[in-house]
């Protein structure tokens, strides 16, 4: 039926479509490569610059102008991250529980959910300023607690979100079954729902923990930094991100300290990437 001319036109159209499509697919593949290559470049740079400085003294010595290590900064960071994670997790799980179990589709719950989502992407420097205004200024001094609370606020919405999502995935029938056995609401939530949602919540907490481990901006105005071994949370506190920042700015005239910054950057990035990957395994 088809005429000769029509067939030729058809082939032309076909070629054009094919050509357009291959350009598009090529562009998409290129975009993917573009996205992946940065991680490779950054990790490569960290390895090249950071690996030569890696030694035991990095962990055992405190920060000094000449020589020294990052031991005190690592300890301080661990403590503040731990404080931030504990505070943020407790508040976050409770808040997420309320949203999933009690608030549900109510107006208030929707508002809180919305605000939590907004806080999730709020600039971390603002959180630092906020804690400066409400904790550092009234207390009169920088402190590890201020740093920990700032980190907790950054972690909070991550945990709220995952807790609510995970509790939502717990089948309603489980709740009903527990209820039929005579269990009260609080018991159902803590024993039945939490155990069902645990893996997901742990994933969320790990991801959040990874995020706050690397935060620098909120610590400038809250924990500050120290070159001493600091274990009192009520005092200025040494931490890794600030040490990297200082070593790349005011200390950057000392080649050893720039070297140490790259080594610290390598450690920090590897720890955070490891947490991210572990979180994905927990989720499975």
């Amino acid at each position, binding site marked *: 039926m088809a005429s000769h001319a029509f067939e030729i036109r058809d082939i032309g159209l076909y070629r054009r479509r*094919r050509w357009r*499509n291959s*350009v*598009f*697919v090529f*562009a*998409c*593949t290129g*975009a*993917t490569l573009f*996205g*992946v290559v*940065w*991680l490779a470049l*950054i990790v490569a740079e960290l390895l090249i610059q950071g690996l030569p400085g890696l030694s035991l003294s990095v962990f055992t010595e405190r920060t000094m102008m000449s020589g020294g290590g990052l031991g005190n900064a690592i300890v301080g960071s661990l403590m503040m991250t731990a404080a931030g994670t504990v505070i943020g997790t407790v*508040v976050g799980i*409770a*808040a997420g*529980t*309320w949203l999933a179990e009690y*608030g549900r589709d109510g107006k208030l719950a929707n508002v*809180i959910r*919305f*605000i*939590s*989502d*907004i*806080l999730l*992407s*709020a*600039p*971390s*420097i*603002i959180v630092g*300023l*906020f804690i400066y*205004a*409400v904790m550092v200024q009234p207390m009169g001094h920088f402190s590890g607690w201020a740093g920990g609370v700032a980190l907790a606020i950054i972690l909070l919405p991550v945990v*709220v979100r995952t807790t609510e999502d995970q509790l939502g995935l717990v089948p309603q029938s489980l709740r009903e079954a527990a209820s039929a056995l005579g269990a009260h*609401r609080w*018991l159902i*939530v*803590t024993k039945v729902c939490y155990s069902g949602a645990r893996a997901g919540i742990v994933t969320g907490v790990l991801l959040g923990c*990874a995020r706050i*481990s*690397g935060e*620098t*901006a909120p610590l*400038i105005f809250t924990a500050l930094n120290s070159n001493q071994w600091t274990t009192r949370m009520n005092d200025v506190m040494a931490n890794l991100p600030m040490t990297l920042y200082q070593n*790349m700015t005011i200390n950057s005239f000392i080649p050893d300290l720039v070297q140490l*910054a*790259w080594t610290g*950057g390598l450690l*920090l*990035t590897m720890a*955070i*990437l490891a*947490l*991210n*990957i572990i979180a994905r395994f927990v989720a499975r």
Partner: protein
Amino acid sequence: MSTPEYPSNMPLGADQHRLRALGRNHRLDLAFQGTTFVFAMLVLVTLFAIIASLAVAGYSTFATFGFDFFTLNRWSANQEIFGALPAIYGTLVSSAIAILIAAPISIGIAVFLTEKCPSKLRQPLATTVELLAGVPSIIYGMWGVQVLAPFLQRYFPSVLPAGTGLFTAGLILAIMIIPFITSVTRDVLMTVPKATRESAYGVGATTWEVTRSILLPSVKGGVVGAIILGLGRALGETMAVTFVIGNNLFFAPTLFGQGTSIAALIANQFPEADGAQRSALLALGLVLFLITLLVLTAARLMLRKMDRAHG
């Protein structure tokens, strides 16, 4: 609460012991609900506390400068002239550059991952892109100032004589937000029912045609939401930007030249600041927060509409 009575709940023949257990459990129920409610309200309170504390701390600046705070073309702390225009301009332009670069790339990655990628590679590639979001921003800053800026300066000396500037900041920001936009775009692309796309492929449509005519139109709101979400991220990014933006405190209508962003200005000046300057920086913080609030609200509303449409 006085001793509760449970006419309807009380099992027949319940003894005193059981009744007490019921009462205890009821109180625990209330306590549990109450506690979780208080913590949920804490989330709400945090947002308003942030706005309130910054407004109080920055009040004297708004009182002194009024609307001029937004239109004065320079930020000169020693002369106590605080004009936010250069910082606002730099924030918006560097973020816009970031979006212009990151949006098409991210959509490309998302389409590749959902439509074209061999299934064995899909998960590793997606994870790799997402890990990019895990790299701390201070690392981007170090890398930007020591690797990227010198590279740009060396190979594009006529456009970027110093290697730093709004464009460099935008490029770094683009790299940082690609994972966010990609992962949300990928999520919304996956919401397109399998049957829809398979029937399109079935009648012989190419990947490009499916993407352009089926996928993107049906998830338009979600993709736009994802991009705006990325914009929200870019606006407030601090550590990476402060190293490479060039920190010019005079307003200059430039794309490749030096400028500053709100976050970078705060990070640079806050430690040295006191008195009027400190108040001005806190006021600036409020401005940044309100801008991001606006943008993020728009993003969430769009994504929520998406959710409803598919939910």
